[in-house]
């Protein structure tokens, strides 16, 4: 009976893993098959078919894709950096100082509550405002917006990280005559470096994946990867091999980033309710 139970558990685990992993493998498989082979039920490269890197080469040589990859990179790094800068300062204030009106709790809730607003509400105002300021189809507009939408994550993750840091070290520095900024820069930041890096990385991954505003506000020169992908099947039909390459080109960056920041992800996704 116990054995059956254990075997059942393994079966469930393996089924779940196959369910999760199959789409990734399918994308990879199609990306290294020739167009003729994509409809063959072959699953193992080298043994059942001869893999080719031709589609990777041709997609990576396409100017639109290169430009989109560059845009996505700039947007992610720029947005995450702004979110981290603002978020670190605000999180430190929430963790170490006491605010009266509004209270620390109310301020934290205010930052978290930004996440409840449906993004589509902002399509119209952002479009009209960016048009006003001449920022339509600019990378800068997407940097600003993604920084805005990832800022709550940064504030929440980091205010907990700072709370976990013992106060004594900072207090010693303050007694020795350091200013708050000095002790913040020379003691707090170095000690919380892993948390800061993870926050930066998570904000990058979210910014990379953002689609709604990228679609609304770009038309040509600022188009990032997710928008390239969304328009693709209508211009060239479904070509499995290019789908495979493009999907992986888009997904790999945020996935690798997320695995690097694994330890902080639960905390970020539950808006700080769980330490993870």
């Amino acid at each position, binding site marked *: 009976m116990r054995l059956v139970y254990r075997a059942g558990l393994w079966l469930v685990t393996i089924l779940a893993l196959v369910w999760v*992993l199959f789409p990734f493998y399918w994308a990879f498989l199609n990306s290294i098959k020739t167009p003729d082979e994509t409809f063959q039920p072959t699953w193992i490269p080298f043994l059942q078919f001869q893999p080719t890197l031709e589609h990777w080469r041709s997609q990576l040589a396409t100017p639109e894709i290169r430009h989109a990859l560059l845009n996505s990179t700039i947007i992610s790094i720029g947005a995450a950096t702004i979110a981290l*800068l603002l978020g670190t300062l605000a999180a430190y204030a929430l963790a170490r100082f*006491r605010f009266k009106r509004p209270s620390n709790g109310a301020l934290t809730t205010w*930052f978290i509550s930004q996440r409840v607003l449906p993004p589509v*509400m902002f399509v119209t105002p952002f479009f009209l405002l960016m048009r006003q300021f001449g920022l339509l189809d600019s990378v800068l507009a997407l940097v600003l917006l993604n920084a805005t939408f990832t*800022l709550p994550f940064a504030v929440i993750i980091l205010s907990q990280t700072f709370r976990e840091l013992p106060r004594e070290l900072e207090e010693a520095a303050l007694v020795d005559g350091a200013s708050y900024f000095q002790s913040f820069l020379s003691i707090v930041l170095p000690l919380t470096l892993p948390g800061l890096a993870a926050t930066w990385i998570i904000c990058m991954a979210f910014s990379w994946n953002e689609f709604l505003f990228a679609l609304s506000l770009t038309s040509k020169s600022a188009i990032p990867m*997710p928008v390239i992908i*969304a328009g693709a099947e209508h211009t060239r039909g479904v070509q499995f091999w290019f789908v*495979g390459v493009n999907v992986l080109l888009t997904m790999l960056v945020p996935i690798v980033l997320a695995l690097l920041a694994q330890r902080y992800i639960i905390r970020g996704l539950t808006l700080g309710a769980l330490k993870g």
Partner: protein
Amino acid sequence: MDSAGDNRRSVEYGADPKTAQPKGRTDRVKYLFIGPAVIWVLAFTIFPLLYALYTSFYTYRFGQRLGFVGLDNFVRIFGDVNLLSSLRVTLIFVVGTVATEMILGVGLALLLNREMRGKNVTRGIATLPLFATPVAVGYLAITLYYEQDGPINSLISALGGRDVPWLSDPVWALVAVILVDIWQWTPFVFLVTLSGLQSLSSELYDAARVDGASSLQNLRFLTLPLLAPLLWLILLLRLVEAFRVFDIPVSLTLGGPGRATEVYSLYTYRTAMRFFDHGYAAAQGFLLLVIVMLIVSVIFSRVRGLYEEEG
């Protein structure tokens, strides 16, 4: 003593006069720390929100503001058949995805909450869908759902079933969109529930065992009540996310066939960016906000305990 109470540190230092901080100093410095983020949110969230409210009282034609129309844009919502249809599609999507994700995710977490080899690998793998670009997932799913000899239909026919018209049939198309969301977000429910389970104290379970409780009794009277606030939070986060769904239907079905998978956000997006009817789009945005706020206000009280230590 009044201003000393403003700041935890000065309370502590207050006990020892030698290390006391100058009173005004921490008061000003804390605003320098929190100020930039507050100003940023005011400029990029609150101001656009107010601008959207202003926009919603005007009529637009081809992107140009024409005139003040009061509440007309809000009244229009209730006579707009297509909008009501998108609301219906969204509700089906929300119920279908969130219910399935909660049941599967919590169930798997309860089942696998034990010392197992390869636990970290399992967690790592469960993280993958969460960060896979949703648009890319939807785009990839076009090939997975491919109706002639695509992998899913091949599997179904190998098991003796008939080909499913995944993307050409209105009902199946919505099922297809729902399944992709389930693939992407069940791991989230699973991971968070698992973390919650592992933070429960084992002493309680030891005590229950001494009292002779069965594992079913443990689940019913110990695990679920202890986990309840977290489960409500997961439900809240999933509901909020599901109501804003956009990326997957756009990349997988473009809202079709017909309007079968045209979710609310997609309809609003089209109102704004295809018809440039900005006033009406803004009004639609506020209706969605009201719906989401209703859900939050119903559930939030059950979740508040998780944040209480924040003070």
